[in-house]
């Protein structure tokens, strides 16, 4: 394995939790719901995944419980903003604070524990591709899940009838309602999907990436995921690009330091943010037209009777 391949491998792994969380948030936002609670859901996913994996000595149990925890948090959010038409920004921020606090409480008995390493699953033949094969196809299973999620969500939104309905609900919920689409029901599903993804992203952090639980271990990744959705102009493929650009800049700046490139480390540390914003701004210019947010994003919907 060359250094180049090693770097690429780390980039893909570093991008994965951001990508998974961003794809989930993207679906919720395309349905018109802004959920700023990703950080909280992710943290809950991380703690529940670790707790379950540790208790049952099973990574799979951890992943499933992590997703469930994220989903339950999202359901709570859905109850507030869809059931009671609460302010989405406020409820989302509350969800983040609540999730960070609750995860600390749940995780207290598991502090100081660790789990064995999750083995990679190299895919035969594909992983032999020169240069990129190792990075893309010798990863742990969750990386493949992340790729699958992007493709699946892209296909779902662009090519399926349900995807079209979901987008129209996000664009204009009044019209969608008038057409007889189940606005609230679809939004609940979309929000819960977002929660499942955030939970999965959290599970990735505590089971694969660092293999221990500690409070605040998400360290702002949920917020980066939210930002990626905006910069990706609500397109799944651009979210993939954004996550990879962010991951690349993050990992490369560390390598630049290790290789003693004479640049200030503070500048290098800011590089991921600068690079991601720059890349996605350039992309949206090239698309030739401004891509706005879904029309009904963030507005509560109360159906007339």
């Amino acid at each position, binding site marked *: 394995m060359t250094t180049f391949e090693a770097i690429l491998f780390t980039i893909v792994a570093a991008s994965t939790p951001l990508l998974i969380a961003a794809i989930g948030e993207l679906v919720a936002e395309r349905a018109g719901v802004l959920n700023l609670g990703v950080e909280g859901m992710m943290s809950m996913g991380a703690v529940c995944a670790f707790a379950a994996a540790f208790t049952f000595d099973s990574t799979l149990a951890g992943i499933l419980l992590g997703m469930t925890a994220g989903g339950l948090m999202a359901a709570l959010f859905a109850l507030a903003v869809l059931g009671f038409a609460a302010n989405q920004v406020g409820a989302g921020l509350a969800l983040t604070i609540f999730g960070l606090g609750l995860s600390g409480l749940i995780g207290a008995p598991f502090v100081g524990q660790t789990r064995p390493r999750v083995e990679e699953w190299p895919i035969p033949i594909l992983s032999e591709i020169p240069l990129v094969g190792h990075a893309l196809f010798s990863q742990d299973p969750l990386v493949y899940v992340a790729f699958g999620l992007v493709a699946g969500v892209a296909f779902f939104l662009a090519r399926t009838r349900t995807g079209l309905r979901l987008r129209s609900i996000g664009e204009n919920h009044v019209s969608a309602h008038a057409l007889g689409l189940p606005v609230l029901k679809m939004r609940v599903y979309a929000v819960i999907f977002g929660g499942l993804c955030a939970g999965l992203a959290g599970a990735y952090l505590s089971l694969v990436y*660092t293999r221990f639980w500690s409070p605040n*271990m998400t*360290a702002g990744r949920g917020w980066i995921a939210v930002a990626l959705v905006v910069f990706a102009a609500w397109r799944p493929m651009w979210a993939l690009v954004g996550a990879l650009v962010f991951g690349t800049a993050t990992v490369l700046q560390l*390598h630049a330091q290790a290789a*003693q490139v004479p640049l200030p480390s503070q500048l290098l540390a800011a590089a991921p943010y600068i690079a991601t914003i720059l890349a996605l701004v350039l992309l949206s210019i090239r698309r030739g037209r401004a891509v706005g947010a879904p029309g009904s994003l963030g507005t509560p919907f109360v159906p007339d009777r």
Partner: protein
Amino acid sequence: MKTGTSLIAAVAALAIGATAAVAQQDTAKVGFIYVGPVGDHGWSYQHDQGRQAVEAAFGDKVETTFVESVPESDAERAIEQLARTGHDIVFTTSFGFMEPTLAVAQRYPDVKFEHATGYKRADNLATYAAKFHEGRYIIGQIAARMSESGVIGYVGAFPIPEVIAGINAFMLGAQSIDPDIELRVVWVNSWYDPAREADAATALLDQGVDVITQHTDSPAPLQAAADRGALGFGQASDMERFAPEAQLTAIVDNWNDYYVERVQAVLDGTWESQDVWGGIDSGMVEMAEYKNMPEEVAEMARATEAAIASGELHPFTCPVFAQDGSEVPCEGDGALSDAQILGMNFYVQGIEAQLPN
């Protein structure tokens, strides 16, 4: 003269009153501000062990409070909150809390403050720190003995004097074994971000480093080293359980005795502002068990530890040369002075990277 006597009497009465006010008290309320979560298994965890030691030592006589994960930018509010809610003494445990602690200390002259790793003091603000660089020197020697590639790595949080002194001591220790040793430093610009700490360690390992250490707060770099079959050290706390095959030893901060002693002083009414800097000899810096290394290396480490504890060996024994080859003025007794170490802002000779400033 009558008026004069009564004035003196009044002053005396006032003085007695004042003495009575600072004299013994039955109970104390003790507050702690942590920069990370108590579950970081490192820096904040060890401070919280100290808080628990206070509770264990005094039982019902003390009430302790802690606020964890306090961002350095928002510390003033958290510190003031504790000062306002009747705490007798507040320990703030991160370098970045220095200015906020000083600001609050000036507003609450009756509350006692202790700030870890800083240098600004007041009548009601003491400082305390540990000479972690003593431990760094030992692990530098071990790293040089254990490295096969001759390249060792260091994950740093922020380029502040305490961290820089640690890097230099580590390098000097390593150079005492192998003068040609190479040291790579990666800054993560965070005290606590396990995933990024792991990425930083991985970057070092990918570039040929085979022994790493870190001055951040989580076990992630050590774990990353273990995953690659490389070696590492625990930081602040014994992290052996995270990497039983990879941890060579750990520099353990032991604040327990210090916290108990200072709370006792508050109870006795003898608390005074001071500056304490304890090393291996004081027990504030402890080395975890030397493992995963040949017995001769462990023996060397134990000998160095004993020499530092007895004062026979100083990590910054003169002459010390800065990166550009110039000799650093020797302001201490045969070694750099404490002030020079506490304000260290240069790399020693042999480190190639540029110091961020």
